């Protein structure tokens, strides 16, 4: 039970990081991006690729299974993931945003997600990969609860990122423009803010968080080309549960989804775990379609 709670919080924090990016793009760019979860896979694998270069310089820092190389690899992955997000936006989403029905963009993101996943499969192959072969010994915190140092690191990093993002959205001019664009796009334009710049930064921030979440997933679970596909439903469930466009909501939503997934194993066979986010989603849509904290705008019509 205790172990399931701890595992749930860990999964939840990884889902939360991905869901923040998704909720920002859903709130600001106003479409459900099915390709967002693939940015997580992309980030995780780009870090793996970068690690092949950076990994030769230094070893792991105890008690973690990784060291400075993975930190640098993550930074490279963040840049490459942001680049991919901007490229996709430039090539596909922007041309479609202007001239067709809004759902065409959603559908195109569906096609893009497939393309990204298959390109990763093509480059890295389909088998599971790991950042490190070091075995890590779990520390017994109390009876019935063992924790890996990497897991503690994951939680701490997630917390730090959420606080930093909150400060960014509240205190900086760019953060203010982003919130404003989610609230009322026309008013933002009237105020002479270049929305293209804001949109671009939204992609960069969403992609960066996705990359970090991918690396953390790879660190604590494993790397597989299906990471994104399997995270897509939890991400949407978390974003909608927390209210679209609401960053803190996405974090809480992510934790709830992660906990529910991990606690579900106590009641139903583990094979059905992936369906849990779907039932959370259905329940939210039936009972409280704007999410527990209320969406910024445009939940119920």
């Amino acid at each position, binding site marked *: 039970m205790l172990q399931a709670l701890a595992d749930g919080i860990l999964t939840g924090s990884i889902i939360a990081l991905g869901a923040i990016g998704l909720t920002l793009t859903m709130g600001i760019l106003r479409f459900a991006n*099915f390709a967002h979860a693939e940015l997580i896979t992309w980030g995780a694998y780009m870090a793996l690729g970068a690690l092949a270069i950076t990994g030769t310089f230094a070893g792991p820092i105890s008690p973690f299974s990784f060291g400075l190389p993975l930190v640098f690899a993550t930074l490279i992955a963040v840049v490459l993931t942001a680049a991919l997000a901007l490229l996709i936006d430039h090539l596909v989403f922007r041309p*479609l945003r202007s001239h067709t029905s809004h759902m*065409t963009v959603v559908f195109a993101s569906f*096609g*893009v997600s497939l393309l990204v996943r298959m390109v990763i499969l093509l480059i890295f192959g389909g088998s599971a990969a790991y950042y490190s072969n070091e075995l890590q010994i779990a520390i017994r915190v109390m009876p019935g609860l063992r924790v890996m140092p990497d897991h503690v690191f994951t939680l701490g990093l997630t917390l730090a990122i959420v606080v930093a993002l909150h400060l960014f959205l509240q205190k900086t001019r760019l953060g203010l423009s982003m919130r404003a664009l989610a609230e009322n796009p026309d008013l933002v334009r009237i105020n002479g803010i270049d929305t293209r710049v804001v949109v671009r930064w939204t992609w960069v921030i969403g992609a960066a968080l996705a990359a970090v979440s991918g690396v953390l997933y790879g660190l604590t679970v494993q790397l597989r080309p299906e990471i994104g596909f399997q995270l897509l*439903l939890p991400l*949407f469930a978390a974003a909608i549960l927390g209210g679209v466009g609401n960053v803190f909501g996405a974090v809480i939503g992510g934790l709830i989804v992660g906990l529910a997934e991990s606690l579900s194993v106590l009641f139903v066979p583990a094979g059905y775990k*992936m369906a849990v986010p779907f039932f959370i989603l259905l329940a939210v849509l039936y009972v409280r379609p704007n999410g527990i904290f209320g969406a910024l705008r445009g939940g119920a019509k």
Partner: protein
Amino acid sequence: MSGYLAYLVFFLIVALTYSIVVMGLNLQWGYTGLFNAGVVGFFAIGAYGTAILTGPDRPELIGGFALPFPAGVVGGMILAALAALLVGLATLRLREEYLAISTFGIAISIQLIGLNFDALTGGAQGLTGIPRPLFSTFGTPGAYNLFYLCLVGTITAIVFAGLQVALQSPWGRLLKAIREDETAAASLGKNPALVRLQAFVLGSTLMGLAGGLYVGFIGYVSPLDFLPLLTFQIWAMLIVGGSGNNRGAIVGAVGVWALWTMSGFAISRLLPVHYQSQGGAIQVIIIGLLIVLTLLFRPRGLIGEAQSVSRHAR
């Protein structure tokens, strides 16, 4: 019958079965603007429903009611309709994306049930030995396949004709009106959410029908036949053929399925042996590119939607 011809018959049976799914999706997306991201789920419900209802009785399974084939197919269609109702009622009053996300979710849940609920679905092994309708009447497999092609062809024609009638009726015009301008339609006293729900459930029922026909032809169900990839393939068929036009839906189904089969054939011939495992990925990338490029450069597809103008305005 020569090998080529036999293969052509086999190919057409599968392609026409898919074309019924594409017409169901066309009703949802092409005419009503509803994004179904879990097409494969409704197809699978129809297939599993038919298999469970018509399959032989076996002690270790819940199903196996040995019903006649038509009853099984209708049962599968009803199950698909119920699943569509569950998702539709939750989402069709809300933002359009929510339907897309929920359909994606239901497809995954169906896949999990197919894989894990051994007592009902046979788990990873699937259900085998599902009786094929009128199989004993025909002497050879070749003759039987020809019969089945006629059967699927006839049903495809009926679905096509039925949809044409429905779409040219006032109800069909209402679908387009709601897709184009919901507020205007609502101001005329129409109920957009209800009409959308009708189109969504009807489309999903057609997907269930196709699933039943598929099972009747191959005689077994396995979770491997209902991978999420099928959703992409069906979408590619609709987008390439031209959404909003049922002739386009059929042309797209046959065309894209031909492209898929031939690319698979070419890859297995041309690619060096140790790259073969990546061959599937290349096939999928072709489909993905087809979707995105068609959307960007030929958004109306091969045969796009015909403009409908009132005869008084012409």
